[in-house]
């Protein structure tokens, strides 16, 4: 479980996060929703140690992640698929996967086959440079690269960005399946609130850096005001 308490992040005079608190339970998907500029990406980057908060704590495994180096947080088992996927274009598919496995003690040969079974297209493209991959293939690679290290927590930043609706639906099903089969804790940042709420167990809604809702996903999905004012979902 990850417990975020009173997290405050400022970019100069701009308050990106204001006293954000929530819990992401083990084996569950917590969707973090909100409009552009709500602070969703900042929240994930703060959990990963890429952004230093002015106040607050992030508890994982009896450790406070605040102040810890990003690479050490990754080595604790926190995988992060950043916005834009973050695949390294100048490396091949296999090199990207090998890089993902470096920080853990997993057997690369075994784990890479597991990922190739999950995402067969990556097996076909294993020797190709990532610059040649499509958006969907890059997303699969980014997911596979994060999963190959067997993380206990997975932070996903806008995984559906730029993907066709059919691929987004497939991706969301895969995330739910991963969560259920591997007891993975997922924090899913999404602008596509409808898709995210369909698979999430819990939802946190951010507005201008503050938490405006923190409830189970079904409750948030049914709240017309939340959907109308914060999630951009057209309510009939």
């Amino acid at each position, binding site marked *: 479980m990850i417990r975020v308490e009173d997290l405050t992040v400022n970019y100069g005079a701009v308050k990106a996060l204001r006293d954000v608190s929530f819990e992401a339970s083990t084996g569950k998907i917590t969707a973090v929703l909100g409009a552009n500029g709500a602070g969703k990406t900042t929240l994930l980057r703060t959990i*990963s*140690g*890429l952004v230093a908060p002015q106040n607050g704590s992030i508890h994982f495994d009896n450790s406070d992640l605040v102040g810890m*180096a*990003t*690479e050490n947080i*990754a*080595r604790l088992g926190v995988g*992060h698929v*950043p916005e834009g996927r*973050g695949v*390294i*274009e*100048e*490396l091949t598919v296999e*090199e990207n996967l*090998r*890089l*993902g496995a*470096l*920080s*853990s003690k997993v057997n690369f040969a075994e784990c890479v086959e597991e990922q190739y079974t999950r995402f067969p297209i990556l097996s076909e493209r294993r020797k190709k*440079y990532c*610059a040649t991959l499509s958006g969907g293939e890059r997303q699969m690679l980014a997911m596979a*690269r994060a999963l190959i*290290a067997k993380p206990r927590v997975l932070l996903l930043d806008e995984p559906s960005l730029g993907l066709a609706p059919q691929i987004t639906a497939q991706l969301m099903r895969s995330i739910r399946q991963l969560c259920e089969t591997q007891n993975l804790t997922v924090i899913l940042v999404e602008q596509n609130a409808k898709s995210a709420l369909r698979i999430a167990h819990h939802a946190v809604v951010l507005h201008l850096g503050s938490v405006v809702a923190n409830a189970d996903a079904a409750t948030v999905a049914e709240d017309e005001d939340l959907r109308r004012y914060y999630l951009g979902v057209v309510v009939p």
Partner: protein
Amino acid sequence: MSAFLSSAIMHNIFGGLAQGVIYSLVALSLVIIWQSTHVLNFAQGAMAMFATYVGMTEIGRGVGYWWCVLISVLVGMALGGATERVLIRPLYGKPEINPIVVMVGFLGVLEALAAAIWTSTTRNITEPFSQIYFQSNGHLVFLSSFVIFQIVLAISIMLFVAALFRFTKLGLQLRASALAPEVSRLLGVRVSRMLTIGWILSAGVGSIAAVIIASGSFGLFPTNMDGIFVASFIAAAVGGLESPIGAVAGGLIIGLVEQFILAYWSPNVAPLSGIIILVIVLMIRPQGLFTKHASRRV
């Protein structure tokens, strides 16, 4: 056969190769630093020169040649690591021109410091292998043990560096750290450590090149690497900046072309040969001869 080996054309080929491997080694050191940190180290030659002075001074105290080489390389590596930590690390994330300006300044500092400590007089260092040309059936073959040593050493180091980057975990982490430091951190790579290792490796290879140059007829003086650095920089760019094999090929091409222009045209034109080759390569293949993927803006 003996007549062929002693012909003018072979003389120029051997001469070009001997000079080319020097360019190749320095180019290789630039490629290592580029591959692992994406910084162009304009003080590479001066750092290697300084390390060579420190090591080779020991010869005067009765220390054996190979021990002095080892000292030079170790000092070079230490200087590389310290430079990254002290001068370059504060500049990460700053405009790309900043490390270039700092390293050009550092070049001046090192050359002035070397002149102040060891004077500007050229020092001749006993070569480890004979520079006397071989003979075959009474014909002089323009190839010496020292030239063969240079060529074998350059090829061995190139293969080592290529294998390091292509096949090892360390090489993969070095490349990833330079290409995408933030993503690498998210994957657990200790990026700051990788950047330091990149500079240490690069400085080590550069020092080997400087020791060879100082041991040959060129000798050792504070600015002895300046001209070589320019030709080597061009060699690295011709090869594609990201390819160890490209660096070596670029160095050899420039060495050979320089030698042939020197022999058959004019010594005044020879130094320009590198620039001409660079312009032609950049027009035909902007990413360099040996880079597989498209070029990236730096």
